């Protein structure tokens, strides 16, 4: 069944219920002795729409998920499916071909074996679409009957709609939570599969990273899966080089904006700074790869480093640092601005200059907020991929030389998942293990940052 059908049904029937219920409520109103209802007609209308459209929509979501399987089972049970290959790509191709022809996406069958399956597909689709629509209609009817039995002049539709809205909002937030949970479960599951093939000790403490996607899966060489160079690259680029750029610049711009800039200037500079946060990271990637990396290489060569590479950790780190300036600066800005004016006045009245006041009073008082901002920025930086791919490359080097090519956890995740290895090859699965480690690290950083921010908020309220 096309996913649009239940949606359209839900909207159409809901709208019909909405209009009818409102009409009925108007009628109640005109008949009521004092011309008043417990709830406005529009609430009666929404109540009807929720009860009629809601179940249909929920059913549609569930039906959509299981309908494909039901059709497939039906087709496989048909006599035409008897001489299909048991497994493999050819079987999949035949089934897909038949389905495409049945649904009209393709004109004619190219694989002869698909021919006998077209008709069963067509029939099954028709059957299950019919069942789906029928169930949806029955649900809508039940909802409608329920609603119209309850609609009375003194019916408290308003509070019921309130509860319905609550339910919708709850569902919306549930989607985000369930998605996070689902991601986590997938990660954990695949990570365990990976650790079944490569020992966690090899993975976490090994210093050589060079998965071979073509190696046999039966005996995996754990020494090729040492992730230390990736962790080092991530920390070196994201937490060291980028922070050396972002912390001073972000902090200084926050200080300038909160303490020195006049309001007009602030009005212009602050949004401009925030635009930096909105630039797609791919664009930063171009900039890093096409402008900064060659410039660094030229400088390196001109000072006598002959073998400077055109991809370097320095280029990626510098550009990443610029990218996260707004994170550092906006948190620092907020926390400096949150230090009570009385502190500033107290210091100035002691005969301190503005600069002394900032260094000795404002920054110490705002430090928790500043630190939290830096932590959020670090967790953003170590999750960044695009800039590193473009500017620092794929080579897993364990080196403290910023001019060397380096790679990070995220880059290798992309490389492994898009590589040639099959889904159950340890090279592919290593991506999940890397993702899991990254997830844990950023989670810890975020939790620390949030706790620090919370404590800092309590301090001045």
């Amino acid at each position: 069944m096309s996913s649009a059908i239940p949606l359209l049904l839900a909207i159409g029937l809901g709208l019909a219920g909405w209009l009818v219920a409102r009409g009925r409520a108007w009628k109640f109103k005109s008949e009521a002795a004092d011309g008043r209802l417990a709830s406005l007609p529009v609430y009666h209308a929404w109540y009807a729409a929720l009860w009629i459209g809601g179940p249909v929509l929920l059913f549609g979501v569930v039906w959509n998920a299981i309908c494909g399987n039901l059709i497939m089972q039906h087709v496989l049970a048909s006599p035409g499916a008897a001489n299909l290959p048991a497994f493999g790509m050819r079987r999949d191709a035949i089934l897909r071909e038949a389905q495409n022809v049945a649904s009209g996406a393709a004109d004619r069958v190219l694989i002869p074996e698909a021919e006998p399956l077209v008709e069963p597909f067509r029939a099954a689709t028709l059957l299950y679409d019919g069942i789906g629509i029928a169930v949806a209609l029955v649900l809508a009817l039940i909802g409608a009957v329920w609603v119209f039995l309850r609609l009375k002049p003194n019916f408290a539709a308003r509070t019921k709609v309130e509860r319905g809205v609550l339910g919708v909002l709850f569902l919306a937030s549930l989607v985000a939570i369930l998605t996070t949970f689902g991601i986590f479960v997938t990660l954990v599951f695949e990570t365990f599969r990976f650790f079944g093939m490569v020992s966690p000790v090899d993975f976490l403490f090994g210093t050589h990273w060079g998965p071979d996607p073509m190696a046999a899966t039966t005996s995996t060489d754990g020494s090729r899966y040492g992730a230390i160079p990736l962790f080092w690259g991530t920390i070196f680029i994201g937490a060291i080089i980028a922070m050396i750029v972002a912390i001073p610049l972000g902090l200084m711009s926050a200080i300038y904006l909160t303490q020195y800039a006049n309001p007009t200037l602030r009005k212009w500079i602050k949004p401009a700074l925030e635009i930096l946060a909105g630039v797609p990271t791919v664009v930063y990637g171009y900039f890093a790869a096409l402008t900064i990396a060659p410039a660094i290489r030229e400088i390196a060569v001109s000072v006598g480093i002959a073998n400077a590479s055109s991809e370097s950790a320095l280029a990626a780190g510098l550009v990443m640092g610029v990218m996260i300036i707004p994170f550092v600066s906006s948190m620092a800005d907020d926390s400096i601005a949150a230090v009570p004016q009385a502190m500033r006045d107290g210091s100035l009245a002691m005969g301190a200059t503005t600069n002394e006041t900032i260094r000795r009073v404002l920054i110490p008082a705002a430090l928790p907020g500043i630190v939290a901002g830096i932590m959020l920025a670090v967790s953003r930086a170590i999750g960044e991929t695009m800039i590193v791919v473009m500017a620092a490359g794929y080579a897993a080097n364990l080196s403290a030389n910023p001019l060397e090519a380096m790679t990070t956890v995220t880059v290798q995740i992309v490389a492994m998942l898009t590589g040639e290895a099959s889904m159950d090859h340890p090279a592919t699965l290593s991506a999940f293990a890397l993702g899991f480690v990254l997830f844990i690290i950023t989670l810890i950083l975020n939790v620390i940052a949030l706790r620090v921010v919370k404590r800092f908020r309590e301090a001045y309220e």
Partner: protein
Amino acid sequence: MVTEQTPLTTPEEDEPTGEPKIRATDVSVYYGDKKAIDEVSIDVHTEHVTAFIGPSGCGKSTFLRTLNRMNDTIPSARVEGTIELDGEDIYQSGMDVVQLRARVGMVFQKPNPFPKSIYENIAYGPRIHGLAQGKGELDAIVERSLQRAGLWDEVKDRIEDSGTALSGGQQQRLCIARAIAVDPEVILMDEPCSALDPIATAKIEELIDELRGRYAIVIVTHSMQQAARVSQRTAFFHLGHLVEYGHTSDIFTNPREQKTQDYITGRYG
């Protein structure tokens, strides 16, 4: 609680000797186009505690803040007239505001200790002005300041605790000690007791009395009783004008102006 009121001094026995510490002449303050203070002239002597009283919004705090140029932090504020500290105009172009504020300390309405230790709060001023050579001298300054502020005995065992952990009254005395630590000539107090309970208020008032003579003290207060208790000179402000300035005893017992009479008897304000 103050058990006995500081007796109102009689005019004859406390005529100031010598030049005034601060002489304000025809001072007007503008916030943008709005005139907040209109041609106020006042002399402040070290021998006296000078109180500024008046209803809210009368400009007494604004005027107080012109005396150490704290109004400079408000971009739209503009000051006319002259204010002399020991005969030197503090608004002249070459004036070093930072030095001025070291000479004219200030205590605010709400206690505002820095979120640092008690020791660091007091040491802040001496450090930035380089008043102490070495740790020993700094310790001495901290102890002396806390003693003068009557806080030493209460905090000497927890000098490294945070200043913000003290009670409101102790915090305010800490702020006074902080101001004293840079050895100012004048201390301005902007309603220093308005956030404190009566007992803490009484302690601050006692302290003000003890500090009199060593520092010229100017106090803005909403409480007429407080002005009567702690000050020897009182200035009554109304709508940006200085209505009356004179001996505290005269202002409260025998005011020249009808407006002053109305205010101190509680008819408005």
